Every structure is written in structure tokens, then in C-alpha cells.
């Protein structure tokens, strides 16, 4: 039998109790409704959105579109008649998700052989054969268009990258990376408050930053009519979509 360093017989330590993680409950608590399901504000007939949603659910039953946000690194294989294997694989970071309904798109960016390449894919395009999420990480902004004016090292991703394995379906980690930019001029004036970018490390002089704040509109956050409260609409659509997908 075991003796401890003191020379006395060791006290019986019971084995640690197994921690039961209820996967079912966790998965139910975490709901993700893809942003293209939420109809935009306007005067169009809801019937149009209903029909579109039916088609989107139909496509999702056949083809799995994973949950992803802006900042994830995805690999997309499309059917291409002129490629060798009739399939074309592109790896890139998602910089923007636009469009609503069946025309929803996402732009993947990568730098291949010192040339920046951005491809805009449609989520519900029947030519797409597979979408794999290689790395899950959210960024501080919703729109990473400033990567065009950032140093190319922030947009380069290995084409043969292996998918990073994530076990828990709990939280998507947020990467608080502050990106360094190329010298000005940029394609857009990212320091202005209208873009509200938190993910850039601005190395501009203080004078320029103060001048950019001249375009600040502090009354815009109090303009109540511009807010679009989607919580109730989301609830309804979530119920509809999850019921259809379970069938």
C-alpha cells in the first residue's frame, strides 16, 4: 500500500466525482439564427419573406450551412467546369456578410502569392458543394473591410490549414486583435466615427484623430426611429425554422 513522505499510511482519497455535462440543455440554450433570415424593415409583403424562408430551409435540409460569423476562416468548395477535379477550393477569412433571404452573400479574403484575393460567395448557391469552418473566432467588428488597408500578414491564411478542433459548443471566442495598417491613403477613412471600428491600432498623430472626431454625430444614438428591434421577429422565425429543420 502507498505511504506518504511522512512515513504514515496515506489517507484514503475517494476518486473525484464525474462532472455530468448536459449537452442537450447547452445546445438548446445556445441558439443561432443566421442573419439572412431576419427580414429588413420596409413595406414589402411578409408573404415574400415567408416563401423565401421556405426555400432557404429546403436548401438547408439538403446541404449543411454551418454557423459562422465575420472573422471566421472558412474553406468553400464550388463546382467549376473548367477546374481539374471539377471542384474549386478557396480558403479565406470572412470579412462581410451581406444580403437577406436567398441572395445572402459572404466575402472571403486571402492573400495568395502576394496578391490579395476576395471572393463573394452566395450562401444558397447550388454550385457550392461544401463549406467548412476551419477556425472559429469572432472579431471586434462586424465588417472587416479595413483588412484591405492593413498589412498583408493579417489576411494571409494557409490554404492547406487543418480545421481547429473545438469540442464545446459553448461560446464563440472573440479575438481582440488590433490590426496595424499600411501608411495612408486608405480606401476609406477608417478613423472616422461613422465606421466605428474597434479593431485597428491607429498610429496616426493626435491631431488627425481629433480632426476625425469633427464628423462625430452624438445625436445619432438617441434617434429612436432608426432602431430596428428584431427580438420578437427573431423569436418567431427561430421557432419556425427549428421546427422545419427537425422534420
Amino acid at each position, binding site marked *: 500500500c502507498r505511504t506518504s513522505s511522512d512515513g504514515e499510511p496515506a489517507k484514503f482519497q475517494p476518486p473525484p466525482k464525474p462532472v455530468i455535462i448536459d449537452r442537450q440543455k447547452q445546445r438548446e440554450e445556445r441558439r443561432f439564427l443566421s442573419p439572412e433570415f431576419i427580414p429588413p424593415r*420596409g*413595406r414589402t409583403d411578409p408573404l415574400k419573406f415567408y416563401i423565401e424562408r421556405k426555400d432557404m430551409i429546403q436548401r438547408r435540409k439538403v446541404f449543411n450551412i454551418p454557423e459562422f460569423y465575420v472573422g471566421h476562416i472558412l474553406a468553400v468548395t464550388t463546382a467549376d467546369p473548367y477546374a481539374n477535379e471539377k471542384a474549386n477550393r478557396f480558403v479565406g477569412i470572412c470579412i462581410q456578410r451581406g444580403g437577406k433571404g436567398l441572395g445572402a452573400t459572404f466575402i472571403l479574403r486571402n492573400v495568395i502569392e502576394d496578391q490579395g484575393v476576395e471572393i463573394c460567395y452566395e450562401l444558397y448557391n447550388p454550385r457550392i458543394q461544401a463549406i467548412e469552418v476551419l477556425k472559429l473566432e469572432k472579431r471586434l467588428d462586424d465588417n472587416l473591410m479595413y483588412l484591405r488597408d492593413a498589412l498583408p500578414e493579417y489576411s494571409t491564411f494557409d490554404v492547406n490549414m487543418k480545421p481547429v478542433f473545438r469540442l464545446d459548443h459553448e461560446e464563440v471566442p472573440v479575438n481582440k486583435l488590433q490590426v496595424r495598417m499600411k501608411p495612408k491613403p486608405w480606401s476609406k477613412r477608417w478613423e472616422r466615427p461613422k465606421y466605428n471600428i474597434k479593431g485597428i491600432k491607429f498610429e496616426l498623430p493626435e491631431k488627425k484623430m481629433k480632426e476625425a472626431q469633427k464628423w462625430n*454625430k452624438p*445625436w445619432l444614438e*438617441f*434617434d*429612436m*426611429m432608426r*432602431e430596428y428591434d428584431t427580438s420578437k421577429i427573431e423569436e418567431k422565425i427561430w421557432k419556425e425554422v427549428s421546427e422545419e429543420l427537425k422534420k
Partner: protein
Amino acid sequence: MRLSVAAAISHGRVHRRLGLNPRSRLDLLRNLVTALVRHERIEAPWARADEMRGYAERLIEYAKLGDTDERAMRMANFWLTEKDLIHKLFKVLAPRFQPHPGSYTRLLQIPNRDNLDRAKMAVIELKGNPFPPLITPRRDTDKTLLNQLLKGYRQDMQQAAAP
């Protein structure tokens, strides 16, 4: 082929252009909202009252979230320039409109202003105010064809049931 486009097409834009610039438009509407919360019934040009109606109703919805809510307090602080009205909003108006889910204001048109500009005026009031009621146009629903036929049918049924 008509090449000139009418200048009044807005293509889905919902905000009217009031005042000098967007900041002044919000200031104008803020003054009107403060006056509405203070007096509960005001006369104003129809366009301004119509713009203001949406903001007033959303302000009351924010107030329904409660006093302790940080966002509600910031909104009320911005929108009500006279700070004693913040107390009235949260303690008097929010409980008054708690049971109602939707519209809290009433907008009715008034004869044009007597000045040189003859502007289209409107009166906007919060429902449940202590003043005597306004003259709302009521459509006499008894004289429509369908209601008259239903009335006749009901009378026939009663006569057939109790001869």
C-alpha cells in the same frame, strides 16, 4: 420614355427634413416631445406633430422598461430637456400606459393657422389625459348596408323565435 423623374419620390425614406440640419430636426422634435409630456395636449404644425408621434411613443415604450434601466434613463435624459419631467414620465405616464400594448397618442387635424402662412395644424394628445375629450370624427356604423341587413336578420330571428 419619360426621362425626368418627379422630385417628390423618396424611395422608401421615412424621415422628413425639418429645420436646418439633422441635429436641428432632432432638437425641434425634442422640444415638442418635452412640451407634450408637460402639457399632454399640444397644437403644432401637422408635419412636426406626425414626426414627433413616433418618437413620443417609443419614449413611452422605453419608459415602460423601468426606472433602473440604464438605457431608458439615458434616453429620457436626452429627450426631456426639463428634468422634472423625467420623474413624471417614469412615475405617472409609464404606469398609466402599462396595460396598453400600442398607440399612446392621438393625432387630429385642426383648421389652418391664422397667420400669413396658413400652415396645416394638428393637435396631438396623450390618451388618458385629464382634459375634456376632443371632437373626433365618428363614422355612423349603424347606417351601413351590411349592418342594416344584419339588424333586419336579427329582428326576423327574434320574431320567429318568440311569436
